[in-house]
């Protein structure tokens, strides 16, 4: 599907109660433009479960199942297995979870579903913190970032969830950014049509969490890709591909536009830069050694 063919109508309907400039809402709208009506979705506790799933205002124009924080992958597994038992085919069973639910508490159930190659599509909208509870660092928060539980900057490197899932030899695993919208469409559409375990992690700017003006999200996620902060990768048929070659410029400018990095030290910035470059080399090595 080309961008010009992307339908305006989304099965995540207008009028959600997300913050101005929320990219989580934007991702949900675009995902549901591509997936369409034959979708069943589950969302764990998250901003999205509040702004799109508080009774009686449910924005999901498809069957919607709200479950707990640790078990999104298992929830959609249960739905997918029940559909299989009923002989209902060609329905996409989607899990739409934040990074806290995915990388921390939900990691065991995600691993279980990946291991069994369950027929599910799991999309993580990664805004790099527990934003719904008021900006606490998660397992994928960047080095040096402020959060209400890392007042002097996060000391830990983020977990690399796609790499963990690639270690499971999953059917499909990708990262995406709505700034690179055609790449995003290609990946969601591909994942829609594949069968087996599919995972897409999308960088999602959060205006209060990143401490940015509400118009800045789309620019920032673009700069994230160009600076190498956010890598666009795709793993399919046991082949890893890097979709966009980062320029490795503009990292400092990218950080300086966000209030969450206001107090980052030079040492933390350096550690962040090294971690980003190491991650790039790891993926580059994987891409170069695909023949192995």
């Amino acid at each position, binding site marked *: 599907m080309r961008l010009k063919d992307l339908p305006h109508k989304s099965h995540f309907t207008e009028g959600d109660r997300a913050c101005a400039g929320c990219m989580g809402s934007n991702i949900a709208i675009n995902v549901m433009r591509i997936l369409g009506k*034959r979708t069943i979705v589950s969302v764990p506790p998250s901003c999205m479960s509040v702004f799109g*799933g508080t009774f009686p205002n449910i924005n999901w124009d498809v069957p919607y199942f709200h479950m707990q924080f640790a078990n999104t992958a298992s*929830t959609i597994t249960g739905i997918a297995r029940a559909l299989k038992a009923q002989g209902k085919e060609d329905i996409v069973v989607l899990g739409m979870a934040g990074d806290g639910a995915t990388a921390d508490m939900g990691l065991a159930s995600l691993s279980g579903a990946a291991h069994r190659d369950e027929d599910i599509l799991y999309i993580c909208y990664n805004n790099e913190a527990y934003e719904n509870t008021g900006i606490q660092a998660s397992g994928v928060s960047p080095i040096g970032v402020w959060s209400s539980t890392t007042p002097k900057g996060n000391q830990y490197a983020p977990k690399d969830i796609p790499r963990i899932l690639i270690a499971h030899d999953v059917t499909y695993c990708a990262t995406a950014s709505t700034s690179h919208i055609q790449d995003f469409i290609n990946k969601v559409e591909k994942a829609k049509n594949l069968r087996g375990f599919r995972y897409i992690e999308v960088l999602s700017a959060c205006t209060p969490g990143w401490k940015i003006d509400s118009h800045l999200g789309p620019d920032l996620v673009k700069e994230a890709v160009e600076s190498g902060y956010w890598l666009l990768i795709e793993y399919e048929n046991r082949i890893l591909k890097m979709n966009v070659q980062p320029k490795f410029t503009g990292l400092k400018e990218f950080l300086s536009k966000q209030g969450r990095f206001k107090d980052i030290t030079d040492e933390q910035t350096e550690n962040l830069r090294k971690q980003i470059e190491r991650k790039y080399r790891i993926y580059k090595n994987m891409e170069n050694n695909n023949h192995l």
Partner: protein
Amino acid sequence: MIPDTSFTDMITANKAVAIAVVRAKPKVIAAYPICPQTEIVEYVAEFVSQGDLNAEYVRVESENSAITIVAAAEGTGVRTFTATASQGLANMHEVVAAAGGMRLPIVMFVANRTLMSPGGIWPEYSDSMPERDSCWMQVYVQNNQEAFDMIIQAYKIAEDSRILLPIMICGDGYTLTHTTDTVDIPSEKEVDEFLPPYVAKHAFLDIENPIAQGVIVPPSYHMEAKWQMHQAMKKAKEVIKEVNDDFASKFGRDYGGLIRQYKMEDAEYALVVTGSTSSTARVVVDELRSKGEKVGLVILRFFRPFPVTEIQEALKDIKSAGIFDRSISYGSTGQCFIEVRNALYGTSTPLINLIAGLGGRDITEKDISFMFDKIKENETVKVKEPVIFVNTRGVTV
């Protein structure tokens, strides 16, 4: 292969439950091992692999996922099954509570085992009792035949459109799960007639008719949902009795519904008892009766919904009663005692709480005789402390 005809076998409760699952035909089963339930998921794996049962068998990575998968599958409109015990049930807790409120008619077997600390793998009700407020029905079975029969009845009760609540069938770990006993297995046809395939009529995930389940409900709507849960649990009493009577007429085994009474017609002293201990207690009642003592048993089968009026009726002419508990709410009393005393509020019947068998300690005939001695003694000597730890070192009674 499991024969589709009726047969009788010497089997453990675990095997009886697994065969009942074959007869009940759930479509999605989630399995995770934990003693003393493990054999159930082993047997079911074997039965699915050899074609006795056509179901999705999901070998998960935790109990939290096991209950999640059956909840989500049930929410998609299919019959499900899982089993657990002790720490496994505790690991499930948040989803157990969610499933109750979502009105998902899940059937789960709980092989009762102590919840640490102290650690242990032996029977106690400290695993299932904390789930009494999770909006699940709970039935405690006495023997392996009842374990089989209640799996079959449980689906019929839970899936009734007047109820739509999950149910846990609780059976004593090891005492039942690992001990063989004679079990009559009805034919596939007989069970099919009693328990037809499940057709979800209420809310379930269907792309042609999108609904939302388990959503966030603000204070302005919340109390109505909780009130409906309460009403459904109360209504379940009627359905449990109906299903019991229907089962009794078809299969010849009548469990009395919510409670079962033993030699209570002219009894002066009664013991309220649950689970496999009821079997030992029956032997003791027979012995005491042969000596002319007017004693009887009230076997508490269902703990949720709690049979308030049945207990009131059963104990109305009793001079003194004791309530057995195989778990305790520390600093208070055993959970059955709390409920029975609550049911008898306003009466003057002397009541004592007999705590026994914690962590799997044997409950012998001698212990039961001791319980009746205390019940009789309490008629005149009103004890200040209603809780008696039976057969416990350092405790003088």
